[in-house]
């Protein structure tokens, strides 16, 4: 599924990366521990997290994730957003808690084997 489609489907708010919405999503990962994401996320995953500080962008670049989805209606820090724009990493925001959002992602076919 393309990021564009997912954004519509789950009413995600795009905070940056409008030009990367054609990215294909191949899986998903949810975690708030960056070291865990570094060890376990896969290229092309959407990464669901509550973390909003600038290091999430570095991790996203390193792991080549398709997008970061910040849950619980939290907003990325200013420096996070700036860095994400520089690195061309899409950041999306959802009002839903992680559990509900991941459920919807799975229903949409993300990560189903």
């Amino acid at each position, binding site marked *: 599924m393309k990021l564009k489609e997912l954004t519509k489907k789950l009413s995600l708010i795009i905070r940056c990366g409008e030009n990367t919405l054609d990215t294909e999503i191949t899986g998903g990962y949810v975690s708030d*521990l*960056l070291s865990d994401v*570094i*060890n376990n996320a896969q290229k092309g995953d959407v990464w669901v997290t509550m973390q909003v*500080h600038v*290091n999430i962008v*570095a991790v996203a670049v*390193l792991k080549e994730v398709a997008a970061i989805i910040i849950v619980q209606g939290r907003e990325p820090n200013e420096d996070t957003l700036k860095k994400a724009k520089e690195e061309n990493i899409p950041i999306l925001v959802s009002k839903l808690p992680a559990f509900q959002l991941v459920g919807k992602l799975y229903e949409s076919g993300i990560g189903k084997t």
Partner: protein
Amino acid sequence: MLKTFKADLHIHTCLSPCGDLKMTPQKIINQVLTNNIDIIAICDHNSAENVPALVKAAKGKEVVVLPGMEICSREEIHILALFENLETVFEMQAKVYEKLHGKNNPDVFGLQVVGNEFDEVLGFNDKLLIGAVDLAIEEIVNRVHKLGGLAIASHIDRESYSVIGQLGFIPISLEFDALEISTRLSYAEARKKFPEYQNYTFIQNSDAHMLDDIGKCTTEFWIENPTFEEIRKALKNEDDRRINA
């Protein structure tokens, strides 16, 4: 005779991936002297490899350099670990390295430069210093104490990488020697914000990653000499030693 000594016990160098490349031994010491700081601690992420250069760069100058590290626990909590000498800080570093996995990607996280006291580059550290060490926070605090060191919770008012941010509160089992507050709030505000932690000693440092940040916030120690042992006493309020706050 007890008197006031100004300390900034949380300074990063160019070894930290997020530390500015201008954070070299000579430049740091010059900035410290300009700001009339008496005692500093060098606390790079999960490494103490630039401590010897800083100690040498401070030789004959009016500043004392304490060996330290800012260790990131399994729970991604930052802890300032301060030691009396190079031997013990490197003993701690050996344990940290054993439990720290991954390689740094300088393009993503930044360069990790090891230098000497003349600001010459000796090499680059290729470990993932920004990463988390696979040791529980209790274990880190206990190891630091076993080596005669001090364990201080980093920037407890910050949401990211702080004990309260990651665990929600400070467990009784953690025997921190002090709690550090960031440059974002005053002692008075900190006491108001954290009434449940009144019994801890609060200190404030710059957490400098750039030269201009050094000394932005400092802690005034009411002690006899600028030594590790005197600082330990002040944190514990022993023998009339204390923090002026």
